[in-house]
């Protein structure tokens, strides 16, 4: 179980957004960090991509396939399945629940934000998403994060503990120093 020093495959982010403009934007932002990006336009396509069979609307017991997705970033407001519903299905899935999920929204609604964080989202970004937001994804995308369905590793990084040095400009309370837009809280020190 040794740590692999050389990263061979780029980290893989699945982006979900029904807006073609926002898909293009998030893809470009993510690629500045050399992530491999797959962008889909709906929650159902996301679940298909992640290998969940559409057994009674994605309530499958387990996925045979191991997905190589390291992080999922999804819009909240989408027709059909919302980002919240997608988050919930991911967290309910044995095979997918450990993949960090980030929600994006153009609406700054505190109740919505807390709901998502309580449901297990790692971060909540207000749109338009910027490079400084994507920068916050780095601890969730360190190479030690990759988990498989059989991985019993109790390395508990997915609540975003700061064990990666110097990656963030945020102070202890998780506030970002950037913000004249009233950017939402990112609670990467969830309790």
């Amino acid at each position, binding site marked *: 179980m040794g740590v692999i020093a050389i990263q061979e495959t780029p980290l893989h982010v699945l982006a979900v957004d029904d*807006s*073609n*403009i*926002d898909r*293009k*934007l998030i893809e*470009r*932002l993510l690629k*500045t960090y050399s992530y491999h990006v797959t962008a889909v336009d709906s929650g159902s396509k996301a679940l298909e991509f992640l290998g969940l069979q559409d057994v009674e609307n994605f309530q499958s017991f387990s996925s045979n396939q191991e997905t190589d997705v390291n992080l999922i970033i999804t819009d909240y*407001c989408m027709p059909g399945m919302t980002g919240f519903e997608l988050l919930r299905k991911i967290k309910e899935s044995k095979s997918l629940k450990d993949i960090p999920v980030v929600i994006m929204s*153009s609406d700054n609604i505190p109740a919505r934000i807390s709901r998502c964080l309580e449901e297990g989202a790692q971060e909540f970004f207000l*749109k*338009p998403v*910027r*490079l400084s937001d994507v920068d916050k994804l780095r601890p969730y995308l360190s190479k030690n994060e990759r988990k498989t369905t059989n991985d019993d590793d109790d390395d508990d990084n997915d609540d975003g503990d700061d064990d990666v040095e110097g990656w963030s400009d945020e102070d202890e309370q998780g506030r970002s120093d950037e913000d004249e837009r009233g950017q939402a809280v990112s609670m990467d020190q969830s309790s």
Partner: protein
Amino acid sequence: MASVSQLQRQFVEYTTSLYNEGYLDDQFTQLQKLQDESNPDFVVEVVSLFFEDSEKLLNNLATALQQKIVDYKQVDSHVHQFKGSSSSIGAQRVTNVCVHFRNYCEEKNLDGCLRCLQQVKHEYILVRNKLEALFRLEQQILQAGGSIPMME
């Protein structure tokens, strides 16, 4: 024939005025920062998507508001989309009208909605014209052998 430095100065002045007059906000600058040698047309590509989307949305809005019985949820959904896309490219004035538009949708205020439709169309056309002028200026600079000044 304008020299490169004259064109560049025009570019800087024009861009500055667009920010000062609120047509564009910082998000547009963010887009420009994402443009580089491996993504040389990024801004034009994103803005073109915005133009295409906007034309469709404006048509959809007009149709939706012409119905005998207006489905305000549907109208709001279109406006929400418009608000999102305009905000993603930094077209601030369009976004601002969309905010008011959504309020009228919530109130099911037909007159308010119709007025906002006119307003948002107007603001969209303005920003479209200005962005097209900006892109033309960029092309002129590049064709004259110059480089596009970085705005801060």
